[in-house]
């Protein structure tokens, strides 16, 4: 069964890179939906039933940690795996993301292999 994925990042470049990584992975990826911040992501979640979310942390309007918290508090989406992919590498941010329910954490810069390894463990 195809896995629909939501990519949330304010950088169009990173969204393109992650699309490519997903398409080149062995995962049965279906539709890939993109959002530029947490607000757009929540709107997209209401339109699409996704099985995986890849999200940045530092974004305008609603950041990745607020998105994570909102998703985990909602019965419809609370079990969707969320992989945080971000430049934020401080221990505090990692712990905050884990405490809020992040399924995994990858720090930028990343290799395609690092993302693929994390995804295999999550899906």
């Amino acid at each position, binding site marked *: 069964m195809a896995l629909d994925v939501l990519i949330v990042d*304010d*950088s*169009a*470049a*990173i969204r*393109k*890179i992650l699309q*490519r990584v997903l398409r080149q992975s062995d995962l049965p990826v279906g539709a890939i939906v993109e959002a530029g911040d947490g607000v757009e992501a929540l709107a997209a979640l209401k339109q699409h039933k996704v099985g995986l979310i890849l999200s940045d942390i*530092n974004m*305008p309007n609603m950041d990745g940690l607020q998105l994570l918290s909102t998703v985990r508090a909602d019965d419809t989406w609370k079990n969707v795996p969320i992989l945080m992919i971000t*430049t*934020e*590498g*401080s221990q*505090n941010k990692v712990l905050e993301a884990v405490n809020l329910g992040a399924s995994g954490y990858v720090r*930028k*810069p*990343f*290799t395609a292999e690092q993302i693929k390894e994390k995804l295999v463990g999550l899906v």
Partner: protein
Amino acid sequence: MEAIQHEKVAELIKRATSDVFGTMLGLEVSVADTKLSAESSNNGGGGLVALIGFAGPWVGTGSFSCSPSMACRVADALLGTEHAAVEEDVLDAIAEMTNMILGNVKTELEEIIGPMLLSVPTVIFGRNFSTRSSMRQNWTVVTFEHGGETIEVKVCLTSNVDQKEARPGFKMGYSLHV
């Protein structure tokens, strides 16, 4: 609060830039020059300049600059598609490179000076322009080489706590604290 040494900032810039180029682009950059410069203006000729702001107990600016041809080369490697001229994808790629390089510098600096915030990067592209910062501090400037092209990454930081004015004309109360 510990002062930040120019040599430490230069070391962090070198490490972050090499790491981001190597990991994300598969390109090797070599350090051509490291200096402390009072001159805050940027080239004056043209090309691409990306600027990003730091806020917190220390405030300042980071910048990444290169030629249009180097920017296209960066975008080609980052996005896996060819770019003959500077267009939206190239600007996005340079913005993200700036975010990753200076974001990693920020993360390392946070271990010394505490939490900081990073702004969204702004990319400027054109001919015959200059950029100028009103900060009075020196810039740590590191020049890298790749394939006959140069890339300049620089950072200017000043304490927001020890000084009465973080920026000329702005008292501490107007600056962001986290």
